[in-house]
């Protein structure tokens, strides 16, 4: 039986909470693997061997980099879950400006020195190869269970490629651009069922930029609806600020 270990980097644990929220669905796959390590939900140490690693959170320290390299060397399959791990997510907002200055804002003048080993936030695939991705902030429990199922059966990943607008049409939502409100649905990877827009909020882009998205066209659409290009860029940066690849 495949051994699964769950790891967390810099995150709010919301995606792990969503795993515990998978309740009934999780029971469907529960008999198919052995939960070898999960600090949030169980006592015990990281085992020497495990087959599947589930990783939540953004890479923000040298220690995270080392951990990821060890995980990749051990696990046959790596699944990253949540915006933080997939795109750098909200933690990557700390990428702009000077990182040290941010420590001074939070901890006081000169405090940055105490935080050696801290790096600018990155998604997991900036450090190691990733086999499966579950995007979103937070993840959808059902999507996680489906991806875990694929991983256990060794069927390849099939992360959605298209932007979200089609889902919005299906939900019969009125496009936010009609009222001059910036919405990231134009370029954001589909798969959430346009949840935010259906509840009256513009898409913030938590599922990351879709492979088939046309950023240039989206930006032009925003401008043609009277939205300053800077406003579009600022909205885009919320979940997509991470830059640079270290490996």
């Amino acid at each position: 039986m495949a051994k699964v270990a769950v790891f967390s980097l810099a995150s709010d644990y919301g995606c792990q909470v969503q795993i515990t929220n998978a309740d009934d669905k999780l029971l469907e796959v529960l008999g198919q693997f052995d939960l070898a390590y999960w600090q949030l939900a169980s006592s015990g140490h990281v085992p020497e061997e495990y087959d599947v690693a589930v990783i939540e959170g953004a890479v923000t320290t040298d220690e995270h980099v080392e951990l990821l390299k060890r995980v990749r060397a051990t696990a046959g399959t790596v699944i990253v879950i949540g915006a933080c791990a997939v795109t750098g997510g909200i933690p990557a907002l700390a990428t702009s400006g000077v990182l040290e200055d941010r420590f001074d804002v939070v901890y006081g003048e000169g405090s940055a020195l105490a935080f050696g080993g801290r790096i600018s936030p990155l998604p997991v695939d900036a450090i190691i190869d990733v086999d499966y991705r579950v995007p979103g902030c937070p993840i959808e429990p059902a999507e996680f269970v489906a991806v875990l199922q694929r991983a256990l059966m060794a069927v390849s990943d099939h992360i959605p490629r298209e932007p979200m607008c089609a889902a919005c049409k299906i939900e019969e939502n009125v496009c936010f651009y009609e009222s001059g409100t910036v919405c990231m649905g134009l370029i954001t990877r589909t798969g959430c069922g346009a949840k935010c827009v259906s509840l009256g909020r513009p898409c913030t882009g938590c599922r990351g930029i879709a492979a088939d998205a046309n950023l240039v066209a989206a930006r032009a659409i925003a401008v043609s609806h009277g939205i300053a290009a800077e406003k579009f860029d600022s909205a885009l940066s919320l979940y997509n600020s991470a830059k640079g690849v270290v490996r």
Partner: protein
Amino acid sequence: MSTLTVEHVARIEGHGTISVEVEGGVVGEIRMDIIEPTRLFESMIVGRRFDEAPLITSRICGICSPNHAVTSLKAVEAAMGIEVSERTKMLRRLLVHGSYLQNHATHLYILAAPDYVGQPNVLPLAETHPEVFHRALAIKKLGNELTTMVGGRPVHPIAAAVGGFTAEPSAHDLETFAARLHAVANDVVETVALFSTFDIPTFQTQGEMLALHDDGDYAIYDGEICALDAGWCRPVSEYRQFVDESVVGHSNAKHSTVGGRTFMVGSLPRVNLSWDRLTPAARIVASKAGFRAVSKNTFYNNLCQAIELVDAAERCAILCETLLEDTGSSAPVKYTIRAGEGTAATEAPRGTLYHSVTIGEDGVLTAGDVITPTAQNLANLEADMRAFAPTVVHLPEEEFILRVEQLVRAYDPCLSCSVH
């Protein structure tokens, strides 16, 4: 001197390491290192628009995200002088209290209970105590579905916006949930009964206790901050004058004191300070479980979480029924963007949560401050460990460590929150 170390303490949110020096049965230095990486949220909201503050800061915590969102919304509204409708306040209360159901059930059954039944995690309970396992899932699920009904999903609410709600639950949903909340009454009462059977060490914290307090209500959304021992109550807006935060070497989370003393926030301080505002049913089960306010036994925090489950289930049912009769609107009120500074506090499941924001004329944030419950509790938690460890140091090493971990889990610490 040998040092016992528990790296990455299990069944808590976030990474923390406990180290205890022991020699010849005597406890020396004892510490909890908070090694969770800081995410620098207070710097990240600077330069973002006011309406993004609740969205960003709710990502401080995936467990109590509704509390962060609601507290941040209140801070932004205080800064810009926005008055929301009574219906909006009711829905926010429902969101916060719904999060208690989910949160306390998760902590009590999944994180804390395995200690008391001698298991590494909750899963063996499915076989040994199926009724307990299914009760745990039922309460947690109801809490999740309740926050989903109001906020759009269990983690990181969508519909709660500056000035009001962008979507509302249907009358049918409110009706259904009122009935389901009444129906869960037995499960939550059983939870109190179960936790009252666990062996609770005799122990008294030396710290102060702080919580929101409101004359008319069990305070979670509004009220003043009151101190149990010192006997004072002060407006939330003065929080920086009474909560002293300082940076400590071994922790990425700051430590807090009040009037030079460590203090505790959370279920036990709330129940102590608002005992007579609990619903009658909650007071009755608490009394049956042998709990008497005022108690300063830290371990009773778990029992008080269970008592709050009873209170929250009843209160949420009443809120659903009141919302059904109420004809007001929760649609976002009209407002003008203006400069200002705003502060707000709510009671998150783990204790008082403060948010403050400074907004410029253009609606862009120039400063922000967040003090989370766990950041307030950490100094008291360490003080408790120092006082408690010598009383159990005679036990075999494994049992000794388990007891110290049990004390930590009584606090239900949220370390990712504490190093936001």
